[in-house]
């Protein structure tokens, strides 16, 4: 295993769109281990996407299990992930390993249904919410060449948006 170098904006490679993974082989699984080690090497990182280390395939890792008292699925390797439905929206503060010394407010869907493959190619579906859903959306953006910088909302929007959020209906649980 190895800690890989992280691309830092304004590196133009962060803006490119990554390709779907086609071969679920040992070299993929070996890369996933390196990617995970890279994520855990940084302080406080809860997710990472393959293009952040210059590997332009649709692979992300998310693990928000370090946050107490939230609904989450633990360590997740998500390959070729797709959001198949989403509901609600919330503003939250995000930072990024590829954008050091900057945090900004970003609007994300509050609830998502996600379909992805694991590192063996098995298709899985997840219902996610809030912090974990935010982490997945942040990492999936990297696969399309998008950074939190592409989605900033101003501080002044915050109060208004949160007031709106209070009226958002609860999602169906089915």
């Amino acid at each position, binding site marked *: 295993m190895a800690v890989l170098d992280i691309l830092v904006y304004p590196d133009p490679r962060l803006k490119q769109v990554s390709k779907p993974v086609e071969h679920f082989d040992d070299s993929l699984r070996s890369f996933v281990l390196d990617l995970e080690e890279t994520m855990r090497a*940084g*302080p*406080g*990182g*809860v*997710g*990472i*996407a393959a293009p952040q280390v210059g590997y332009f395939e649709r692979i992300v890792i*998310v693990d928000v299990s370090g*946050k107490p008292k939230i609904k989450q699925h633990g360590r997740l390797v998500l390959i070729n992930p797709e959001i198949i439905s989403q509901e609600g929206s919330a503003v*939250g*503060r*995000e*930072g*990024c*390993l590829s954008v*050091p*010394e*900057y*945090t900004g407010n970003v609007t994300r869907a509050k609830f998502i249904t996600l379909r992805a493959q694991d590192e063996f190619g098995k298709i899985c579906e997840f219902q996610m919410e809030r*912090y974990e859903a*935010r*982490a997945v959306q*942040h*990492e999936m953006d990297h696969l399309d060449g998008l950074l939190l910088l592409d989605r900033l909302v101003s*501080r*002044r929007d*915050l*109060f208004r948006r949160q007031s709106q959020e209070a009226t958002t209906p609860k999602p169906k649980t089915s």
Partner: protein
Amino acid sequence: MKKWFMLTLVGKDRSGIVAQVTRALYEGECNLGEASMVRLGGNFTVMLMVQFAGNEQALDDLIGPVSRSFDLRHHVDAIEGELLHHVEPDVRITVYGADRSGIVAEITGTLTEKGFNILNLESDVGGSTESPIYVMTIEGVAEQGVEILEEALQILAREKGLETQLEPIDTLIG
């Protein structure tokens, strides 16, 4: 070597001020750091970190003509410029209520007493002429934890007829 200065300009707002001020600074071989421009009660206000090779007087002379052309008042202070060392807020507090004197002093006095260090404060006066409302958003660091702040704010809100809301800022690093 270039040193850092804080340049503040205030006056009646007109369109084109920022463009002409920053053009003059650029042509005078200044580099800009962080900046905050906001209209307060229809007045133009800006604070600009400016990196400049000369002294306060030389920067004052450089900005003088454009400042006078817009009928602005300006001020230059030598400062210690510290970029890329952001302190992250961990709590956001919103306060609103019928406008009256003393709201800011009461809230910030209580927060300071309970170990809260203010990093950002913004406020607006909205509502109608007959019954204006005061809306304030504060972000900062809760050095003695969130519970003590929440309790103090609730008591203050009850006593003073204000609405307060405290919300942890859980910055996601992905």
